[in-house]
Structure formats: structure tokens, C-alpha cells
């Protein structure tokens, strides 16, 4: 059996973290979301994988290559303009024969998701789950195990069972979707809605892990769910007088200097230089080649690769993208905040700062809770920031 992963989208609501990477490449627990999907497929013995790529496709292709590193065989289909999931699926048509699984490249899943779908085995079927915010998804209504209706992002509440965007299809269904797509239904959900009268479509319920990362602050929550809750794996060099408690992973080539206090779950990548006297609290991921200077406090945060954090900084409930350089004494305390993304307002109870890639921050900068700093910004010494900053802002 083959699988198609739809990974062409950008993930605009996650900006600035999708400035130079597509959403499926967002690191959770120091691995891209897409890698969790590939792992879930491979552990169910589905190794022929077609990735439909588009936005920043090279990032995906040069990470996964031919798939050998993941014990899979990956080929790529291209969707240059991201106009809908049905359109993306058809882009992979020439790779497909027989039965196949379709998945969205930007949902974190475990292997249960795939095995539940396969064990049910009915074709065509849609994997469904319950959701607290059904209005963001395709909501399905059921009669027994058959789907009677599916509505994309309904404005009135019709139920809380949603489509996960994971499907088991065959070639016949692919042709039917293509016909509906040509008639204007560019999304798989719309195409299926149109097909419902003519064709039985089954729902498969799952209790497996299916997590959607929609907004920047979701990264912190999802990262916490992904970190292992037991065991320690310590590579690299840990100097004397370092306290390491709870589940902690430290990668090869990393040096933890004296007086550092690490309370897991904490994941630290390879080649980092941490300390002396740094405190890291749950649940935090730190990428590769990260430098953290003395007297810095990090708690419940995600710090990606190649980041330099100067001394005396305080980072709580904060996401820092790749290549950010912080001179010293950055303050990102967490607190209550209102955030606006597109036209939606959010009241967030515990949030720090969201800082985009390659931003350079001077010393003694204070960032208010809920602030989103764009990619490539330059923030001068002593600035106080709040609200949303566009990419490449210069703040003096």
C-alpha cells in the first residue's frame, strides 16, 4: 500500500514560523511534524510514500530526500499553486494504483491513526475524531458508520465529529474526486460532499493521537505533548555540578557547563553550549547548535536550531525560531494577552513571546506577553515590544 502526504501548504496562521519553511517542517520535539507522519506510516509497513509539495518544497525534499534515512521510499509530486486538497491529491495521481492512504502533512499523528484506518479496511473511508473547536474543520454527520454529510468549517454547530483529513481511498475514488474537482470542488471535503448521494463513504473513529498545530502558541503545547515523559539520555559533556532531574535528553557534542540546573521533560539537541549557571524547566525543547549564556532562565519554551541567547535572559512560554541572536538580558515573561490572527481574536492565559527566524535582538529588551515578532527583525537595545511586528522590522 502507498500513502500520499499533502504537504504543499504554507500554514499562514503560523506566521512568522512559516516564513522560510512550510508548516509540515515545523519542528516539534526537534523533529519536523512531517517526520512523525512518515514514522507512523513506516511503522505500519507503508513505505512507499508520495509527498505532494509546493510552498518552499526544497526544504522538504532536501530533508527527506529519497526516504532511505527513514526506511521509506519517498517520491515527490508538485502542486505549484496551493488551491485545494483535491487538486493536490490529483497531482500525485500518476504515482497511485490500487488502494492508498491520504494524510495531511501538517498534523502530528501516531501510528494508531494509521493502524485504525487500515484495520477497518472499508474503502472509501475517512478517519474521524472528536474536536472541541469543530468550526475550524470539516464536520461530519453519521448514520451508523456511513457519512451522511460533511460540511467544511460550519458556521452553525452541527456536531463535534470532524474529519482528520486522513483517508483510505482507491483508484476509483480518485477518478471520482478528479471529476468533482474539475467541476469546481477543489478541496477533498467539498468533492466528497458532492459524491455522498452517489456513493457510500465510511467513517472510522479513532482514539489515536491527532494533533493540529494552528496558531504559533500551539507549538508550545504540542511540543510538551511530544516530549518523552520518562528516561534520560545524556550524550555530550556534562561538567561537574550540573543538576539534571527528570526526563532529559542531551545530544552528542553538546556541553553543559557547571552550575546549570535542568528539570525535565527537557530535550536539548546536538552541538549546544549551555551555561554556566543556566536554568531550564519543563517542558522545553532546544535545537542543535544553540548557545545559552550564564544566568538565563528558560521554561516551557521551544528554541529552534542555531540560536544564541545572551546572559541574564528570562524566557517563559516562548518560541524562538532558527538563527535568532539575543545580545543579553532579554525578558519574555509569560502572562495574559490578547492576540489577533487574521480576523480572529484570542484571549491567551499563559503566553510569552513568539520570535521569528534570524531576528537580532539587542540587550535589555522587554517583550510583552503575546507579542509576535516577525522574521528578520532588528531590535535595538532597551526597546519594549508588544503587539504584532511585521517581518524585517527595524525597531530603535
Amino acid at each position, binding site marked *: 500500500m502507498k500513502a500520499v502526504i499533502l504537504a504543499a501548504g504554507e500554514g499562514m496562521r503560523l506566521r512568522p514560523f512559516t516564513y*522560510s519553511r512550510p508548516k509540515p517542517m515545523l519542528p516539534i520535539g526537534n523533529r519536523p511534524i512531517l517526520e512523525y507522519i512518515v514514522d507512523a506510516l513506516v511503522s505500519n509497513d507503508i513505505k512507499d510514500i508520495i509527498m505532494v509539495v509546493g510552498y518552499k518544497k526544497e526544504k522538504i525534499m*532536501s530533508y527527506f*530526500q*529519497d526516504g532511505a534515512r527513514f526506511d521509506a521510499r519517498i*517520491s515527490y509530486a508538485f502542486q505549484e499553486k496551493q488551491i485545494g486538497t483535491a487538486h493536490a491529491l490529483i497531482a500525485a495521481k500518476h504515482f497511485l494504483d490500487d488502494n492508498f492512504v491520504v494524510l495531511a502533512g501538517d498534523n502530528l499523528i501516531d501510528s494508531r491513526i494509521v493502524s485504525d484506518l487500515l484495520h477497518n479496511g472499508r474503502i472509501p473511508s475517512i478517519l474521524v475524531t472528536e474536536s472541541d473547536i469543530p468550526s475550524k474543520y470539516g464536520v461530519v454527520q453519521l448514520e451508523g458508520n456511513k457519512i451522511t454529510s460533511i460540511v467544511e468549517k460550519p458556521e452553525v454547530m452541527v456536531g463535534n465529529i470532524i474529519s482528520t483529513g486522513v483517508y483510505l481511498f482507491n483508484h476509483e475514488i480518485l477518478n471520482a474526486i478528479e471529476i468533482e474537482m474539475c467541476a469546481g470542488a477543489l478541496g477533498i471535503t467539498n468533492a466528497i460532499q458532492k459524491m455522498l448521494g452517489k456513493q457510500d463513504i465510511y467513517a472510522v473513529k479513532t482514539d489515536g493521537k491527532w494533533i493540529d498545530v494552528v496558531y504559533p502558541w500551539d507549538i508550545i503545547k504540542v511540543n510538551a505533548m511530544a516530549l518523552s515523559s520518562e528516561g534520560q539520555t545524556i550524550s555530550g*559533556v556534562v561538567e561537574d555540578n550540573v543538576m539534571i532531574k527528570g526526563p532529559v535528553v542531551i545530544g552528542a557534542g*553538546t556541553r553543559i557547563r557547571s552550575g546549570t540546573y535542568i528539570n525535565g521533560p527537557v530535550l536539548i539537541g546536538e552541538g549546544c553550549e549551555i551555561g554556566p549557571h543556566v536554568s531550564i524547566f519543563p517542558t522545553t525543547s532546544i535545537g542543535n547548535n544553540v548557545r545559552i549564556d550564564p544566568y538565563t532562565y528558560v521554561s516551557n519554551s521551544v528554541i529552534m536550531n542555531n540560536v544564541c541567547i545572551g546572559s541574564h535572559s528570562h524566557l517563559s512560554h516562548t518560541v524562538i525560531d*532558527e538563527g535568532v541572536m539575543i545580545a543579553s538580558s532579554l525578558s519574555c515573561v509569560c502572562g495574559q494577552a490578547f492576540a489577533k490572527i487574521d480576523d480572529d481574536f484570542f484571549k491567551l492565559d499563559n503566553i510569552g513571546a513568539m520570535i521569528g527566524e534570524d531576528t537580532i535582538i539587542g540587550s535589555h529588551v522587554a517583550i510583552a506577553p503575546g507579542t509576535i515578532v516577525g522574521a528578520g527583525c532588528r531590535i535595538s537595545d532597551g526597546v519594549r515590544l508588544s503587539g504584532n511586528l511585521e517581518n524585517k522590522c527595524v525597531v530603535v
Partner: protein
Amino acid sequence: MCGIVGYTGPREAIEILLDALKRLEYRGYDSAGLAVLENDIQIAKDRGEISQLEKSVPKLRGTVGIGHTRWATCGKPSKENAHPFLDCSGNFALVHNGIIENHRELRRELEAEGHLFTSETDTEVLVHLIEKYYDGNIEKAVRESLKRVKGTYAIAVIEKGSREIIAARKENPLVVGLGVGENFVASDVTALLNYTNKVIYVMDGEYAVISPIGVRLYDSSGNVISRTPSLVTWTIEDAQRGGFEHYMLKEIFEQPASIHNSLLGTLDGIEEGELLQNVNFDSVKIIGCGSSYHAAMVGKYIIESLAHIPVTLELSSEYRYSHGTRESPLVILISQSGETADTLAAAREARKRGCRTLAITNVVGSTITREVDEVFYTKAGPEIGVAATKSYITQLIALYLVGMRIGYVQRTLSHELLRSMKDQLRIMPRQVNAVLDNKEIVEEASDLLVNARNVFFIGRNINYPTMLEGALKLKEISYIHAEGYAAGELKHGPLALLDENTPVVASCIRDHTYEKMMSNISEVAARDSPVLAIGYEGDRDLMAIVDRFIGIPKVNPLFSPVPLTVVLQLLAYYTARKRGCPIDKPRNLAKSVTVE
């Protein structure tokens, strides 16, 4: 990583094995070998790439055989360490991809029982184990042997007097190809696509018995497994290039990851490592050929600026015939493959002259690593495109790291400065990433060069060698005559060649040569030559005086060669693509040059 293949059927095995091995060359290419069975098992091995083996292999007859292409992990790349391996009796031959972790214990045990080993590899224990457990049933012998080993493997074994291949796997890929009256086995389906698209994937802990008429699959205890064959619907080329149009483009896009990997652990090594510990030298000489020589030239600026000691340069082919001077510098030799004949000779010459030697190479255990005192490995991984891209960039990264280390051991680099230099390296993958994100701008700018017959590349200071490398890339793959020049030398001759049909590519970043570069660019523009300039993003003064502009991130000038080189690689790539050139295999050129 290594690659294995096997064939049994009516055809001459050798041709199929060689062809299949070539498809697996991306898995490694430091040595290769094959075993073909007629009456006896005959073995042919050689160092180097498959093409080397192809040249040296005698005409072996036989229709059953196995082959291997190696990327050394345990035991240096040499003819002795190349697979396949025979047992003492010559009854079995075996190829292996993976690592046997407990090979030392097993080897001691087998040697004590009288088995004779011919190599330093972990693999050889497997074939002797099979000999030990053989009591007339090869399957059982393989099963028993594999129970003894810890580690990972994909293996293929042939037995004298049998037309069957036994193949087994644990954590390394293995696939069986089904033909008509013939069957195949390989590490990767790409090796087989010329012959069949019907395959059976072997899973962890399983083994397959492959004969010309059929394939039987078993679990580790010997119970039969049935599995429906799968059909492969993609082509060879697509699979290996992972969606990219050319290997060169794939490798250009791998550079942020290559730089990132090069830094893992090595940044820490600047202060905590052992490289050049307690070594006395007061000058440095860097030696290389081709792109490696350009890296050496950049290295001169890096080391001089970080360590404040004089650095001289030599081409490998010239150094070996020069007369030794009285000084005894630290000699740094740069060779991607570690097999470049001229550079090897230069290494020997340097040792003879009593110099301390340090090699920078990409291939673990290559010849040069045995000819020098110390080795610094670049972490580019196998590079397939003939034009050096990621191997060059990782050479530069190696030179920054070595330069900082020299600065540290010579005590010329303060703690603060070293820290900020390390930060510059940490964000280097990001700078390259930013260049790659703007690939469309470079693609568009390449219009300026597509129809040119001659192009000049000019730069100053640390980016003078970068422009030489840019010119080399362009001529290698687009067949346009390109010359790199130090911008200040232009008026001493080449200015006479400039006219409206001769574009000039200029690097012009805001360092202490900026004003001089600007006036050189004006001189060129005054001769009507179209100018393509590469400078820091947003440089309006520069944009105003040139025809095309490509911006790179504002990095410390000492580190500007890295993003700049990536722009020049993309420029050469897009120019060649628009001209329809065979980018991955330019005429008359080979990947590593092992002739003098």
C-alpha cells in the same frame, strides 16, 4: 552507508552487477567489488568508484554473483577492505551493508579457532561465522551466524555449487527484484529498475532465498512468510534526486544542513579539542587543487585574520616540484576525496621536508589521512554532481574552524572575539538559507550570462578567491569561458577585453575594499560591459551603478564567502540550465582526479 546487489539467472552476472552498483554509488564510492560464481567463486575488487572497478575487473564468467560499493566506516578504504569477502575455504562469498558492533569479540573467537582474516573490516567475521556453522545447510548456517551478531546488516551470500543467493536484513534496506527466469537483490530499488519493477521488500529479521526461478522468504527462525510483490511506478532518476531536477541543485540545497552538521561538536572543539595541541609553528602553508585551491585561498584570509600568522599558498601540482625553503610551516592539505594524486604527492613532500601536516578531507580513512599527522573531516557526505558545491562550502567551514583553533592555540583570539566568531558560524546555515530562499532572483539575473561567450568575475580581498570559484563553476557546467580576476588587476590587462558583449560579475560587500570595488565597477561599466553585482541586501549605492543586483545577508565580511559562493553556484546552475547543458556530468570532467 554502503550498497549491495546480487543476481542469479541466465545472463552474465558481471554486467548486471556493475550497472546496478553504479545506481547505488550515492550510497558510497570509496571502494567496490564483486564475486561471480562459475565453478569457483571469483572475486574482483578495487579502490575508488565503480568506474575504477569496471576498468580493472577481469572478464569473469558466471551467472550468479554479488557486488558491493563501500563508504568506509570500519577499516580504511582499500582493496583489502573492499567487499565481497570469502571464508577460509573459498566456499562462501558475502557482501554487507551495516555495522557489526561485536566484531572484535567474534574475530578473537574465530581467530582462536584458526580462521584467517584478510581485512580490518567488521564484515569479515560474518563469512567466517557462516563457515563455522555450515554443516551442509547454508540457510541454517546464515541463521545461526546472524544470531551471534549485534548490530545492523543487509547481507547477500553465495555458496560454491549453488545458484541461490541468501539475503538477510536488520535495520538496513534490502529489496528483492523479480524477473522472468532471473531474480535480483539490492539495497535499494533504484539499482533494479533497469531490469524489473516488481519487487518484494525484505523486513527486519527476515531472510530470502533467491534462485533464478523463485524467491522464498523466511523469518529469523526459518518459518515461511508469504508476501505479495509490489509494483514500483517511478523511474530511477526521480528517486535518487529526491524531487530535484539535478544532483547539483539537490546538493546546493543540502548546504544549510551540511554546514549545520559540520558545526555539531566541532565548535566545542575549538577550545576543548586536541587538534594542533602542543604544536609549534609560526607560519601556515595551504595546498590544494581546483576548487580546493580556491578554498585554500579563502583560508589564507581567514587564518591571517584570526591567528595573525603568515599564510602562503601552493597548488599541489606545483608544490611537489618546488624547492624547499628553510621555513617549516604547518602544512594544510585540502582534498575532498582524499585521493587527489597531486595533493597526496604534496603531502609526502611536506613530510619529507619535516613539516607538520594537517589534511582537510571529506572521506573517512582515505589515503591522505594516512599520509598526514592530523586530519580534520568535512561533513559533506557523498557528493554526486561533478561540480563541487557542498564539499567546497564545508571546506570553508572547516577552514573557519581550523583558523579559530589556530587563533586559540596561538593565543591571538580573545575569548570575546572567539565567542562572536562562533556565533557567526552558528548562524551560517541561516545565511545560506536566506540565499536559497531568493533563488528566483538569481535565476532571473542569470539571463545576463546565458548568451555570453566570455564572462569576467571580479572581487577583492577574501572574495577574490570566491570569484575565482564562481568563474570555475560557470565554466565547468555552462561551458562559457569565464575568468576570475582580482578587481585591482583588471586595469593591468583584461580591461582591453571588455565590451558590451562581455558581462562582468562583481562582488562588492561593505568591507574596507568597498570604495575601491565601487570604482572598479564604474571602470567596467564605462566600457559598456553589463555588470551583475552581488552585495549586501539593500545596498542602494551599488544598485544604482549596475545592471543587475543580487543581495546577500549582512554578515561579518570575513564570513561573506559562504553566502556569496552559494549565489555563484546558483548563478552557474541556472545559466547552464538555460543553455541546456548536462549539469551533473559535464564533458571531459570526473569527480575525483586520481591521475597526476
